[in-house]
């Protein structure tokens, strides 16, 4: 099938990573192409289009515990659910929004989790997760139509922490004989190794933008 056709337009996804030092300001600023979307996102997108969910028998996979579920849920009873990724996390929430990890395992579209999630906190091996978004409000920048999701991660411990992977998670509705929510991974990217020193802040932005 000709889906190997090289595409040049559509929606692009970039990652911008910055490290902010409390004394020296921005000491690292880099933007890269994202690989990002994993199978769960595609299943979700298809559900949004066909309104059926498990229409072709594929399963979504829970990030927290790798259990396959039947599909996204769509309901039309007296009350119900609407499809949303629920990907805006509050401070300390590692189940929603942008998350970071330490594994450099290459991206694969079948992945359903961070390979080595860095937990939230102020202790050893942890980063403090701010809310998503934080200081950067998602905006549309005409005419290119951009929106971004942003999150700050602060190292409040006394030793550096290395970040090699980032991703986006959410808690959408899925169907498994009934209706539940679970943590699902939508995106994962391996980024150049970044060392976040004590008292430094890592800011990560996912930037979606139309490409015409």
């Amino acid at each position, binding site marked *: 099938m000709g*889906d190997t056709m090289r595409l040049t337009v559509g929606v692009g996804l970039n990652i911008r990573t910055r490290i902010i030092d409390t004394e020296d300001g921005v000491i690292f600023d880099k933007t890269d192409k994202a*690989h990002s979307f994993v199978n769960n996102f595609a299943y979700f997108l298809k559900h949004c289009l066909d309104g059926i969910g498990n229409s072709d028998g594929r399963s979504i996979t829970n990030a927290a515990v790798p259990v396959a579920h039947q599909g996204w849920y769509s309901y039309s009873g007296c009350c119900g659910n609407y499809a*949303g990724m629920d990907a805006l996390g509050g401070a300390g929430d590692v189940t929603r929004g942008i998350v970071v990890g330490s594994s450099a395992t290459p991206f694969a579209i079948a992945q359903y989790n961070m390979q080595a999630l860095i937990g939230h906190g102020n202790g050893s091996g942890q980063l403090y997760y701010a809310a998503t978004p934080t200081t950067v409000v998602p905006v549309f920048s005409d*005419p290119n139509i951009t929106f971004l999701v942003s999150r700050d991660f602060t190292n409040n411990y006394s030793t550096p922490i290395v970040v090699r992977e980032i991703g986006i998670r959410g808690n959408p509705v899925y169907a498994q004989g009934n209706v539940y929510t679970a943590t699902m991974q939508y995106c994962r990217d391996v980024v150049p190794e970044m060392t976040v020193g004590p008292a430094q802040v890592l800011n990560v932005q996912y930037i979606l933008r139309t490409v015409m």
Partner: protein
Amino acid sequence: MDKIPAESGSTHTPNIGAIYEITVFDTEGKVKQVVKDEAKCFVRNFLRMMRYLFRNGFVLNCNNWVLPPPLYEDIRNLAGAIVQTSGRFLTGGSNPYPFNYAGAFVADGAAGDAGKGIVMGTDATPVTNDDYKLGAIIPHGTGAGQMSYDVVAFAPMSIAGNVLTIPISRMIANNTANPITFAEIGLYTVGGASMMILRDVISPAVVINPGEATLIAYRIVLNG
């Protein structure tokens, strides 16, 4: 218009792209013409709905209504009006929970429904990402200047390496007495509002003679 996201400083294949393929069948059902190209435009509404999806969650439980206040998006509907949508569509219900919900932007048009799913039109005005409808949609029917829209079909997704494809297609037939030329196609969806998320101009335009039909397929491609 930037060819690539300005922040990147380098070109790359879009993470979400689309391909359209138009197959014209003659009156005997034989393939007469195939047109295939990269789809040129996810329009503004698509990005707005993506933003909606990222920002919002779900509603659950009849007896313990836990509706979070939706973070609405401004969608330009097919009439050109800016409407705030939460991505759900209303299908009735009863008090005190009068709303029913489904997918965020559903394209499952039934036979005869030219307001949802793949649609075609006659306007060759170039695409911009501000487009919110086809320039001149060809309505459903068997009268002059009309085409017969079949149901929208969703084939199973396919995965090849890190590329995942979502196929959508629709058969549209000319059951009138005269040829009909179409020069644009698009994808109409319903989710809180009726909206267009994709539009493409077909050049040269395609002629469908009486008794002929065309299968229009969009394949949304996710590149990992």
